[in-house]
């Protein structure tokens, strides 16, 4: 059962990921990205990360991407124009990307130590209880710091986005 699910959702993830890059219209890219996130959430579930999967849906798909779509609708951003294509990025970029891919592939083949396997339900350490417990005991300080970070982000966003009074 597991390999089936993995292959299915991995395929969806990759296909939609490619779609994010290929689509000309931001909205299409955004929705494909939502699809990627959803399928990743399923993959998290397969690995027993219930809480994170749900958080992925709520935070990423439910909040962040909605924000993206909101902004796209607000700016009424049309499809990206293809004129004035800067060749520099292509000439240097494509080789760089291919190089990155090759390097990753090669070293994952050779350098990766022997890893185990994932079967649904063979590890139940990712429930809300465990995550919450770890979060509020040994990771308490980082957690608080992130809350401060969020606060800073909120203030910054407001300052940036509000109209200059003059």
């Amino acid at each position: 059962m597991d390999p089936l699910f993995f292959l299915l959702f991995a395929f969806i993830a990759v296909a939609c990921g490619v779609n994010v890059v290929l689509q000309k219209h931001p909205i299409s890219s955004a929705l494909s990205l939502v699809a990627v996130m959803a399928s990743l959430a399923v993959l998290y579930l397969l690995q027993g990360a219930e809480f994170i999967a749900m958080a992925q849906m709520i935070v990423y798909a439910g909040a962040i991407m909605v924000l993206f779509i909101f902004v796209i609708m607000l700016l009424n951003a049309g499809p990206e124009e293809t004129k004035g294509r800067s060749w520099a990025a292509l000439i240097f970029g494509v080789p760089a990307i291919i190089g990155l891919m090759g390097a990753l592939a090669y070293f994952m083949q050779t350098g990766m130590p022997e890893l185990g396997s994932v079967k649904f339900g063979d590890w139940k350490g990712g429930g809300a209880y465990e995550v919450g417990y770890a979060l509020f005991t040994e990771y308490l300080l980082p957690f608080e710091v992130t809350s401060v970070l969020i606060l800073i982000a909120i203030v910054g966003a407001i300052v940036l986005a509000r109209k200059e009074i003059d």
Partner: protein
Amino acid sequence: MDPAQVAETLKHGAVPTAWYLALSAVLFVIGVAGFILRRNIITVFMCIELMLNAVNLSFIAFAHEHKQVAGHLFTFFVMVVAAAEAAVGLAIILTVFRNRSTLNIDEIESLKN
């Protein structure tokens, strides 16, 4: 890892962790490609999110590999950072659009020299 082992794993209805890592690598590279090739600033931003997601996947995979919840927490923190980043980044995009009325990343190069 050698094919025989993979076949063995699959026969037990399990998936090799390495596959998850490979998937995350692929997604990451896709994100990089988008980041380099796209010119709509919003799309570029989305590609960053895609890269973050890819990294998250590998975090989760390693968490499962070592049977520790720490990886989940890193993912959690990445999400928080992503949320903050999205808030500020989109605010910046709004301001940029308001001041320059363009979303094309190539036309925004005031930092030149």
